[in-house]
């Protein structure tokens, strides 16, 4: 793990591109995400060989094949377990985990939840296209009620999972959201995710041109994004709207949209974004703010500090190794506490 060579060789996006052909459908949102991560990583000062990209199964989960790092395309829903194993085995590695709304929230919901609550220092990108892409268009756990697909010809009846609320339910330490149409935003979020010590959960609104085209259009379409996306920045007021004429303020303890006009946000009691609140109320509020009732917030919704699982395991091992018990040799432990001689 040659950290010393780092200075000498500046990485570029190209270093992260594999010769393999990328095989997503032309126009798929996955391309933009891949591009953004490939642009982001060279900036972060980590030698390329220390990156591991782990995924489950799905269109999105083909991702590792296109990243010229160590990669593991595993099985459906189980990427969090492999990612945990990699990170605990060698905490020096930077692990990115790619999953889809089906992979991560349907079959893999439990592993994801446990990884979040354990605060394993892995960076998770959940590609939410509200559909099963790879298996050709069935509804997913994030599909809105009433979604008609081949398996739900009369419309789906399951209440969708809100990924942010789900992550909050597991008290994840870093929760963010970004969109496949905004590379700059993606890159800033990815960067923050990698820099966060602990688990980072990033939901990405992603378009599936084939089976769920324009599902996010009302939120992030060119015509709509100014009014329907709320770009959060720490310690900045929650303002949005064409020419920023709207804001979010609290009415009692529930948020509401207020018109600002030319007024100062502070004057109008506009909320200032505080991602570092340890309680869950604030994030719950953000999780509930959703188009069409609210502009949908993107950015870092929550970022709090807790010790990580991987570092604590290592600390326990290090401490134990420094203890008296560690003076025993292998032969000693095989003998055990009590022997007799014949």
């Amino acid at each position, binding site marked *: *793990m*040659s950290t010393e*060579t780092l200075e000498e060789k500046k990485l570029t996006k190209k270093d992260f591109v*594999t010769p*393999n052909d990328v095989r997503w459908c032309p126009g798929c949102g996955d391309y933009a995400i891949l591009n953004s991560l490939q642009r982001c990583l060279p900036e972060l000062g980590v030698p*390329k*060989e*220390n*990156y*591991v990209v*782990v995924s489950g*199964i799905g269109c999105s989960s083909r991702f*590792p*094949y296109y*990243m*010229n*790092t*160590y*990669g*593991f*395309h*595993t*099985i459906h829903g*189980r990427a*969090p*377990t*492999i*990612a*945990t*194993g*990699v*990170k*605990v*085995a*060698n905490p*020096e*590695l930077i692990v990115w985990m790619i999953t889809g709304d089906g992979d991560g929230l349907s079959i893999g919901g*439990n*592993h994801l939840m*446990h990884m979040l609550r354990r605060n394993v220092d892995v960076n998770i990108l959940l590609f939410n296209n509200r559909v099963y892409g790879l298996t050709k268009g069935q509804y997913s756990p994030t599909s809105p009620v009433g979604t008609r697909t081949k398996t739900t010809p009369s419309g789906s009846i399951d209440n969708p999972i809100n990924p942010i609320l789900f992550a909050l339910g597991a008290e994840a330490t870093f929760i963010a959201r970004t969109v496949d149409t905004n590379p700059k935003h993606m890159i800033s979020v990815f960067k923050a995710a990698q820099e966060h010590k602990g688990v980072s959960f990033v939901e990405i609104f992603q378009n599936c041109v084939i089976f769920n085209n324009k599902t996010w259009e009302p939120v992030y379409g060119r015509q709509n994004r100014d009014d329907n996306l709320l770009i959060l920045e720490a310690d900045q007021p929650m303002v949005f709207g064409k020419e920023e004429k709207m804001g979010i303020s609290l009415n009692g303890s529930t948020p509401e949209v207020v018109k600002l006009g030319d007024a100062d946000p502070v004057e109008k009691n506009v909320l200032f974004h505080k991602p570092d609140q340890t309680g869950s109320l604030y994030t719950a509020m953000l999780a509930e703010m959703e188009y069409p009732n609210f502009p949908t917030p993107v950015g870092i919704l929550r970022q709090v500090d807790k010790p990580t699982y991987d570092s604590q*395991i290592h600390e326990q*091992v290090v*401490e*134990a*190794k420094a*203890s008296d*018990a*560690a003076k*025993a040799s*292998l*032969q000693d*432990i*095989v*003998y*055990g506490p*009590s*022997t*007799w*001689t*014949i």
Partner: protein
Amino acid sequence: MDTQSTHAEEFQELESVVIRFAGDSGDGMQTIGERFTDSSAAFGNDLATFPDFPAEIRAPAGTIPGVSAFQIQIGSREILTPGDRPDALVAMNPAALAVHLSELEEGGILVLNSAAFSHENLRMAGYDSNPLEDESLIGKYELIQVDINHFTLESLSEIEMSNKDKLRCKNFFALGFMYWIYSRSLETTIEFIESKWGKKLPVLADANIKVLKAGYFFGETTETSRNRYMVAKAEVEAGKYRKISGNDALVLGLITGAEKAKRNLLYSGYPITPASSILEGLAAYKHFGVKALQAEDEIAAIGIALGASFAGNLGVTGTSGPGMCLKAEFIGLATATELPLVILNIQRGGPSTGLPTKTEQSDLLQAIYGRHSDAQIPVIAANSPSDCFETAIEAIRIALTYCTPIIFLSDLYLANGAEPWKVPSVDSYPQMDVPFAEEGKPYSTFSRNPENLSRTLAIPGQTGLEHRIGGLEKDESGNVSYDPSNHEDMTLIRSEKIKKVAESIPPTEIFGEKTGKVLAVGWGGTFGSITSCIRSMQAEGFSVSSIHLRHLNPLPNDLPKIFEGFEKILVPELNMGQLNVLLRSQFLVDTIPFNIVQGQPFKVKELTKKIHELLQD
């Protein structure tokens, strides 16, 4: 009870004896069983033990499901099993009597705590009349009724404790009495009591010692004074010994194997009987660099272990049957990606949750075929508690050398059973040198060592060896390939590689002559029973031999030749005939299955009877 010489003045000398302690879960039967074991080991007997825990955590006191038992066989000759039926039974209450009496040898010693034969206890044990009062026990056994409660309290009359607490010591009375009958010294046990409670609870230590002695003296002084027995030291190899259970041996074997291979050991498990104690055992070796994780389920457990292997650790995961079902898909991924991984299955009775506290060896075919598609991996099995040590090291050798997942089979009987073990010198085990790929050289994921067909691992963190693996079919260079003939080539080579393992194993050891009438072919935890049976039949001059397989996939290459030497081939298994399926399909040999599925080890007698039948046919 094998009587050897009976004309000693004081003691009757026995070659071996089987003792069973039985009582309520709260009666401390496991504790005194362990103590008897230690004393006998310290004295120099060979021995084997088997605890029989109740299925419930703590069923109501006095009930049948609440009965807990511990059986030990000690001998002056080699002892390979805890024995078929006890020569002596200690039953601390009616429920224990009800459960275990039918197993006691006729004429055997039966020690009963008469204080426990209350109306209520008798009812809970399902007795209509009190066996101490009716005729049922008279004459059939050497019956010794003792009011153990009374004597316990009496011996502690001077100690400041509640009566309830005093009565907690009563198991040591029974132990003391058995020490007297079997001419054992109290020394080892007193040492144990002192080291365990002497400092923290000196009153308790004192009390237990008093009661232990009271039991012993009871034998010496009372009117019931009677035959005493003596089992001489066994002639065993000189050396330093310890007592070891299967799961303890497995823990140490994994640590030793990882050390020999210079890989960090990462174990990831999810609690399940009887595998939990492996996770618990390894969690205590953090000071040896072991990472032991409790995952959220068995799927996560194997995933974490596999991820660790990918990152260059030695990933190990363990469970029992139901958990093995859950690991199947990941074993397929490990097979496709050819990553080293050790998967432990400590078998128990099935199907489904089945009999979680009883033993069985019925997961063999699952180990071999229990995943979709042609995805063969090596399977090996340990044959005795201490052999779990050797077999764990062998599992690691195969996993690393062939870059493959491997299934290690043990069972509840081995896991919990214990035996004395001549501790080997760890230096006597060779280093395993399986290097990672070399940096600076071109790396091809599935290029292979022509000798053993293994691929070479490159691990994250190594400069310039970045590559991607996954469950989709790949070509040699590691790229996804849907090419028909590539798939066939890869399928064949994966299968060939596993077959290659057979070339690396020692010739099969035949216990007995190389030719003869009957060959018994066993595997796993039945080693003790089968070997005991075969040894004694050989001693009686019968033409029987046995082999016991450690490697179940691939099977040893020398089997067909061995089979040729025998008229009949018997395959005794604690299942419906699973090795039998493998032998028949691979060697087209008309094996004779012998199957018992009762959640218990074979009785040597049952086996002997079966072989006699074959010899007579």
